C-alpha cells in the first residue's frame, strides 16, 4: 500500500538504474492525527444543553391575589419546596443518591385555625388546606410515585384525553404536529377540571428542586402554574408540620 512497486519487465537493461521499492512510513502521521483527535474530542461538547422556558407573573401584587382567590378549592394546589443541607450548605443525598428535597403541599386555601388553643393547627373539616409532605420519586413500573402521583390525579381528565391522542400518534394515525396541537387544546380546555399549581420555594431550597417542580408541570401537562414567593402562613404551616411529625 504505502510502497510503490515497480516491476521491471524482463531482463535488466544494461546501465538501467536500480529500481527501489518506495516505502512511506505513516506512523508519525498517525501519531499526529491521534493527538489532534484527542484534542478535538476533549474540547467539544457533543450534547448541547437544553432550556426550559419560564414565564413569571408580572410583579403587580393585586392581579396575583385575584387569581389565587378565583381558583376553586378543589383545583388549587400549592407546593412548597425545601432542601436539606449539611453544615456547609451542600445538598444532602439519601441512601439512593437522590438529593433530599421535600415538597410540602396543600390543596385549596391554607387552613391555620387553632380553635382548641393547643398550639397546633387543627384538622381542617373539609380536608382542604392541610399541609402534607411528599418527595420527587419519578415513575416506577407500578406507575407514578410521590408528588407526581398527586399532580397526576389532579389533572387526570386532561391526561386521559392526552393519552388517547398519544396512542393514536404512536400508531401513526395522526402526525406529530396534530398531536401537539390536540395536546395543547386539551391542556387549555376550560371544561375539564384542571389544577392551578402555585410553586413556592423556601430560601434554602435548591435550584434543582425548583426546576424539577416545573418539570412535573410539563410531565403532568398542567397549563396553569406560577412561581410565587413564600409567605408567613406557609412558614407557619411548615413549622406546625415539623412539630407534629418530628424527624427521626
Amino acid at each position: 500500500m504505502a510502497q510503490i512497486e515497480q516491476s521491471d519487465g524482463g531482463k535488466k537493461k544494461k546501465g538501467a538504474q536500480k529500481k527501489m521499492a518506495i516505502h512511506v512510513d505513516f506512523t508519525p502521521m498517525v501519531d499526529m492525527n491521534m493527538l489532534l483527535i484527542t484534542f478535538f474530542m476533549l474540547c467539544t461538547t457533543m450534547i448541547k444543553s437544553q432550556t426550559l422556558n419560564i414565564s413569571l407573573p408580572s410583579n403587580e401584587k393585586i392581579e396575583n391575589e385575584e387569581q389565587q382567590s378565583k381558583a376553586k378549592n378543589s383545583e388549587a394546589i400549592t407546593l412548597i419546596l425545601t432542601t436539606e443541607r449539611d453544615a456547609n450548605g451542600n445538598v444532602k443525598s439519601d441512601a439512593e443518591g437522590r438529593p433530599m428535597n421535600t415538597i410540602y403541599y396543600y390543596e385549596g386555601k391554607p387552613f391555620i385555625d387553632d380553635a382548641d388553643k393547643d398550639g397546633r393547627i387543627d384538622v381542617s373539616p373539609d380536608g382542604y388546606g392541610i399541609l402534607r409532605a411528599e418527595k420527587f420519586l419519578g415513575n416506577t413500573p407500578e406507575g407514578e410515585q410521590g408528588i407526581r402521583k398527586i399532580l397526576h390525579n389532579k389533572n387526570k381528565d386532561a391526561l386521559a384525553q392526552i393519552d388517547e391522542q398519544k396512542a393514536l400518534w404512536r400508531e401513526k394515525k395522526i402526525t406529530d404536529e396534530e398531536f401537539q396541537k390536540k395536546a395543547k387544546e386539551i391542556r387549555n380546555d376550560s371544561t375539564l377540571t384542571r389544577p392551578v399549581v402555585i410553586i413556592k420555594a423556601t430560601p434554602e431550597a435548591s435550584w434543582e428542586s425548583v426546576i424539577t417542580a416545573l418539570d412535573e408541570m410539563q410531565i403532568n401537562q398542567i397549563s396553569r402554574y406560577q412561581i410565587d414567593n413564600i409567605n408567613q402562613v406557609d412558614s407557619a404551616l411548615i413549622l406546625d408540620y415539623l412539630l407534629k411529625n418530628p424527624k427521626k
Partner: protein
Amino acid sequence: MGKVKIKRKSTLIDMTAMSDVTVLLLTFFMLTSTFLAKEPVTVITPASVSEIKVPTSNVASILVSPEGKVFMSVLGEADIDSNDESWSSEGVRKIALLSAASKYEEVTGKKTGITQADAEKFAKIGAFGVRLDKMHEFLALDQSKQDEFMGDPANADAGIPLTDIVYQNADGGTEKTNEFQIWMRAFYNSGNGNLQDAMKKGEGIAVKADRGTNYSTLHQILDNLQTIKMNRFSVMTALKTEND
C-alpha cells in the same frame, strides 16, 4: 535432517489504512465540534425533560455561581439582510458597554473612565462579571489575569453587583436600579433587532445556575428580571427522562 529455515519477515506495519481512519475521524470531530465557551465558574445545571435547544446566537446569558455571583455574556448575530456589523456579538458588546457605562455614570454620578479602546477590548471578551467602576482596570489586565480576577471566589469585586442604586429621575422622583438591570437593558437596547425580539420572547435570556444553589440566590435574579419586565426567560438544563 535438513534445517528448517525460518523466514525473516519484515516487522514493518503498513500504517496507511490507520492513517486513513484517523483522518476521517479527525474530519468528523472538526466538523461537528462546537467549542466549549469559557466560563468563570463551572456549574452543573439541573436536569429537565424539556428538549428545547439552547440558541447559539441572539442570547444574553446570566450565569449564577453557587456563591451568588452573577456573570453575564451576550451573543449576537450579524443579520444577512441589514448587513449591519453592530449586530454581531462584538458589535453588541461594544455598544452595550458604552451605553451601560453612560447609564451608570448618569445614575451614580461616578466616573467609570471607560474609553473607546476599552470597548474594543470588551468586544472580545466572553463572560464577564465586574463592577462597572472597576471595568476600566479590569480591561487593562491581560487575559489570564482577567480569568484569575473573575475565578477567585474571594474577590469581592468579581460578579455584577445586585445592590440597589437609588437615583433621582428627570421628574425629581427617586428610582431604584442596579448594575444587573443596567446591563440587561443595555443588551436589550443595543440596536440588534433580532436580539431584542429573542429577549422579548424569552428565548433570548438564559439563566444558568448550579443545581445546589439556594433558591434565595436565584430569587434575587428572578426578582430583578421581573422588575425590568423581562418576565419570560429560559433556564439552562441538562436532559433527563421522565422516569427519573
